[in-house]
C-alpha cells in the first residue's frame, strides 16, 4: 500500500465529496450506492483515486461521469468482495442437515443467491444440490449488480492456488466426494463443470433499486448486508421476506443478523451460529 500524505484539511470534506460522487453515479448510471456504509466506501474510493491518479474525490467524479469505461472499472472497486467456495463450511453443513431434507419434499425448488459476486457460492450450491440429487429440479438465481463479476461467476474459472482452500472447505461442509470431481485443472486455473450451471440463471439485480422477480424457497445472501446502512438493510431483507414462500429459508453471513431490521419477527432462527432463518 503506497503511503499517502494526508492532511486533515484534505480530508475535511471527504464524506461530503463522497456523497456528491454517489449522487452523480446514481443520476448518471442508476447504480445506487447512496445507502452503503460509509467507512468501507471511503477506503474503496481512496483506492480508486489512487488507481485513476486523482487527488480529490471531485476529480474522480469528473472522470467517472465523463468516461463510462472508468465507471465500469470503478464498479470493481465499489463492489469488491473476497469470497471462497464453501465459505464458512459449517453453513453448508447446517444446510445439508436442516434445510435440504425439507427442500427435498418440494417437487421443484427455487434458490436465490443475492449478491453472488464472482460466483464461488453459486458453484458451491450447485455442487451441494447435485450431491443431494436436487440439481435437476432446482433453479438457482444468481444475482449481482456488477456485470463483470457476473461474467466471472458464469465462467466458473478460479485460480489454482485457491483450490486447496476450496477443497478443505468442501469436505468440512459435508461434501460427499472430492472437489476435483467437479473441475478440470490446467497450469494456472481450474474450470468447473459447465453441467453444474445448467439450472443457474445469472441476473443483474440490485437490492437497492430493484424489486422481487420470483417466488423462492431459499435465499442465501452472505456478507452483503454488512455493506448497507440500516435503511438499505431493511429494504433488502424486506425483498427476501417478500420473495420467500411461507416456511422458506434465509441464510446470512456469519456475523449478520436480523436483529436490527424491522423484519425480525417474520423469521425464526433455526441455526444460530450459522445464521439460518426460516420465514414464519
Amino acid at each position, binding site marked *: *500500500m503506497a*503511503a499517502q500524505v*494526508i*492532511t*486533515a484539511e484534505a*480530508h475535511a470534506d*471527504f*464524506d461530503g465529496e463522497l456523497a456528491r460522487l454517489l449522487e452523480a453515479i446514481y443520476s448518471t448510471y442508476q447504480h445506487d450506492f447512496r445507502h452503503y*456504509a*460509509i*467507512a*468501507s466506501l*471511503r*477506503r*474503496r474510493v481512496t483506492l480508486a483515486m489512487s488507481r485513476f491518479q486523482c487527488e480529490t474525490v471531485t476529480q474522480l467524479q469528473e472522470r467517472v461521469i465523463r468516461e463510462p469505461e472508468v465507471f465500469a472499472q470503478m464498479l470493481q472497486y465499489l463492489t*469488491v*468482495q*473476497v*469470497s471462497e467456495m464453501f465459505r*464458512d463450511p*459449517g453453513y453448508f453443513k447446517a444446510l445439508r442437515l436442516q434445510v435440504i431434507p425439507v427442500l427435498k419434499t418440494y417437487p421443484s425448488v427455487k434458490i436465490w443467491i443475492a449478491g453472488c459476486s464472482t460466483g464461488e457460492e453459486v458453484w458451491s450450491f450447485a455442487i451441494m444440490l447435485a450431491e443431494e440429487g436436487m440439481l435437476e429440479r432446482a433453479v438457482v438465481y444468481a444475482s449481482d449488480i456488477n456485470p463483470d463479476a457476473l461474467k466471472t461467476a458464469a465462467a466458473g474459472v478460479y485460480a489454482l492456488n485457491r483450490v486447496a482452500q476450496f477443497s478443505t472447505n468442501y469436505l468440512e461442509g459435508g461434501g460427499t466426494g472430492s472437489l476435483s470431481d467437479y473441475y478440470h485443472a490446467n497450469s494456472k486455473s481450474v474450470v468447473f463443470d459447465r453441467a453444474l450451471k445448467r439450472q443457474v440463471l445469472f441476473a443483474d439485480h440490485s437490492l437497492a433499486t430493484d424489486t422481487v422477480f420470483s417466488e423462492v424457497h431459499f435465499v442465501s445472501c452472505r*456478507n452483503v*448486508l*454488512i*455493506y448497507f*446502512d*440500516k435503511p438499505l*438493510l431493511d429494504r433488502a431483507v424486506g425483498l427476501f421476506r417478500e420473495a420467500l414462500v411461507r416456511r422458506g429459508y434465509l441464510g446470512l*453471513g*456469519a*456475523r*449478520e*443478523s436480523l*436483529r*436490527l431490521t424491522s423484519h425480525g419477527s417474520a423469521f425464526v432462527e433455526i441455526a444460530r*451460529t450459522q445464521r439460518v432463518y426460516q420465514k414464519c
Partner: protein
Amino acid sequence: MLSAPAAPQPMQAAPQHDHVEAVVIGASAGGIEAVSILLSALPKDFAPAVIIVIHVPATNNSLLVEVMQPRCALPVSEANDKESVRGGVVYIAPPAYHLLVEPDHSFALSVDPPVNYSRPSIDVLFESAAYAYRERLLGIVLTGANADGAEGLARIRTFGGKGWVQQPDTAVASMMPASAIERAGADQILSLPAMAAELAGLQAAQTS
C-alpha cells in the same frame, strides 16, 4: 449506574479538548497478554468505549471475549455489525472481518481484502475511527511483528486524536510499535504497566 464522585456531573459537558470518547487498541504477536494487562487496569466507571483489534487466526469462533472478560471490570463483547458504540464497553473485532466505525458511531463489518495481510486490520479500524471521533479519540499500538496500525495511528494524530505506543524494547515483538512511532510519532511511549496506569486515570482526569 456506578459513579464514585460525589459532585454532580453535567450529562453533556461542553466539549473539552482532551475529552476522549473512544479508545482504539491494536495488537498482534504477544497481543493477548498485552491487551489483557491494559483491560485489567480499567475501573468500572471507565467512560470511553474501548475498541480492540487483535490479529488472531481466522476461525469462526473467537475465544478472545472469553479470555478477556474475567480480567476486565467492564463488559466485554464482540462488536456486532450496525450496533451503536457505547461508552464503558469493551468491543473486540470478530475474526476474519474488518471492523470499522461509521460516522454515526455504529459499527460496520467488511470482508474487503486483508490490509497488511490482516483481517481484521488495525489500520482499517483506526482510520474509520479517526473520521468518526476526530480529536476525541485515543489510539494505542501494542506489540506485534508487522506494521499494521502505523498508517492508522498517523491518521488519528492528523485528525487531532492522541496516539500512545508501547515502548518497543518492552514489547514481545517490537516491529509494530517501532513502525508506528516511525510513521506516526506518538504523544506517549510507555511500558505496559505505565500505560495501564495512564489509561485507568484517563476517565478520572476528564471528570475532575
